[in-house]
């Protein structure tokens, strides 16, 4: 199976990645190869094999419902480009 450039462009846009013509071609090729590998795996007969939700055969560890975090806003906001009144400022979002 091979991907066309339009599909790769769409995927790149969804991931907010900007690709030039050269990169677009490179990704189209390598993603197609990945899909090829998956196709090969799909051909294996998996009758009777339970699907895995996670590569490690482990279960979710749960923690008790306790507040253990303290306010570190000042620290976090030191690396933020713009803040005001405790808020992170971002370019205007128009809904």
């Amino acid at each position, binding site marked *: 199976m091979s991907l066309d450039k339009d599909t790769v462009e769409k995927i790149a846009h969804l991931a907010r990645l900007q690709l030039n013509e050269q990169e677009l071609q490179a990704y189209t090729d390598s993603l197609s190869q990945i899909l090829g590998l998956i196709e090969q795996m799909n051909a294996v007969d998996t009758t009777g094999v339970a699907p895995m939700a996670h590569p490690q055969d482990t279960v979710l560890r749960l923690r008790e419902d*306790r507040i253990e975090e303290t306010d570190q806003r000042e620290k976090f906001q030191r690396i933020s480009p713009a803040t005001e009144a*405790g808020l992170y400022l971002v370019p205007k979002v128009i809904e």
Partner: protein
Amino acid sequence: MKWEPVIGLEVHAQLLTKSKIFSAASTRYGAAPNTQACAVDIGLPGVLPVMNIEAARMAVKLGLAIGATINRQSVFARKNYFYPDLPKGYQISQYELPVVEQGHLTIEVDGREKTVGITRAHLEEDAGKSLHEDFHGMTGIDLNRASTPLLEIVSEPDMRSAKEAVAYLKKLHELVRYLEICDGNMQEGSFRCDANVSVRPKGREQLGTRSELKNINSFKFIDKAIDYEIERQIDVLEGGGKVVQETRLYDAAKGVTRPMRSKEEANDYRYFPDPDLPPLVLDDAFIEDVRKTLPELPEAKRARFVQDYGLSAYDAGVLTSTREMADYYEQAVEAANADPKLVANWVIGDLSGYLNKENKEIADSPITVEMLAGLIRRIADKTISGKIAKDVFDAMWNEQGDADTIIENKGLRQITDEGAIEKLIDEVLANSPTQVEQYKSGQEKVFGYFVGRVMKASKGKANPQQVNKILKAKLPG
């Protein structure tokens, strides 16, 4: 053509955990911006989510209460989209394998019962909040709400009118509060509802194209928003047009729905299992432990109130509308040791009236269970009449003490002494010669005048039954 509306609801219930679903930051509402957003919540590199066991318990609790299947294994997935109040670029949710599937709720509309299917309930994290007020042309982001646990409860498209949708929503709202898994506060956004609405020609099996109504955050607006949308779609179809599948916002001020600016490819969320989170596995012991914490549910309580207290179905319904009110009522019946119907009248009537007027919850009532019981005891033992009791109730509400104190201080004790009542009647009759003549000449309606005068002379304290009896005996006739 006859059209049939088809409605399904998606409810986001914020779970009442102390800490977040994937971090140990507080979920308390109303804190200063970003003071409860830790490194995990703001998506700093290298952090890992660790799931809160209480969120799992609460989801199971709801599942058990709606007779659903609890999946022994459920999976968290990443729902990918970009928005500034979602700093990780994905929301952790459940997609293919939710924790709860296939439950139901029974609603009652116009005296008829109907079962509404619940497709699924899944756990997910909430996003932060964008503040669109002007920050020099920028948007402010508060991430305190980020990673607050939500249970998204998705119904089947089983409802056929706005009325049914409201009944379902109220039922679910009542249930999550009974279960103490969500405070149900719609203003603060802890109970939010989206509605999927479509119409089809009556009798047709196939569903019409639906629109999704967002932002319905008050019971008052739900039926208006849905009714508007039904009418709009019928108008479009009858005008030869086609309904477009889109998300619409309800504008409460104008009473209309309007399309949201369609985000490009907004629905391509590219879900995939979150590699940070292995499957959530719940064993039978866990589920049975949760089952033991289930309270008596509204329907069972209602039936018991009718059976044990001899209340009407209506009264039982009002009293069990919240767990707090039901508890208050039961404690008051026990404390007053009086006719349960009398206690019900006071809780449903005066107490609820005063609470509504001042927009208070029963937990904040200035009149405690013991105070109301004290008042009812004095009505039952005839120390005061029902009418005077209303004045005492008002005084208790205004913090003038308990019933006995107020009755004593204001001298409100009912006059039941025959001699004293007789004296009052004699005075009234002596001062009303004209009316006595009228009565003698057969105008019996003057009787009410005498009763009124006697009651007034006693400042409302004379026992009305005795006044009637003695007055009848004294008047010639």
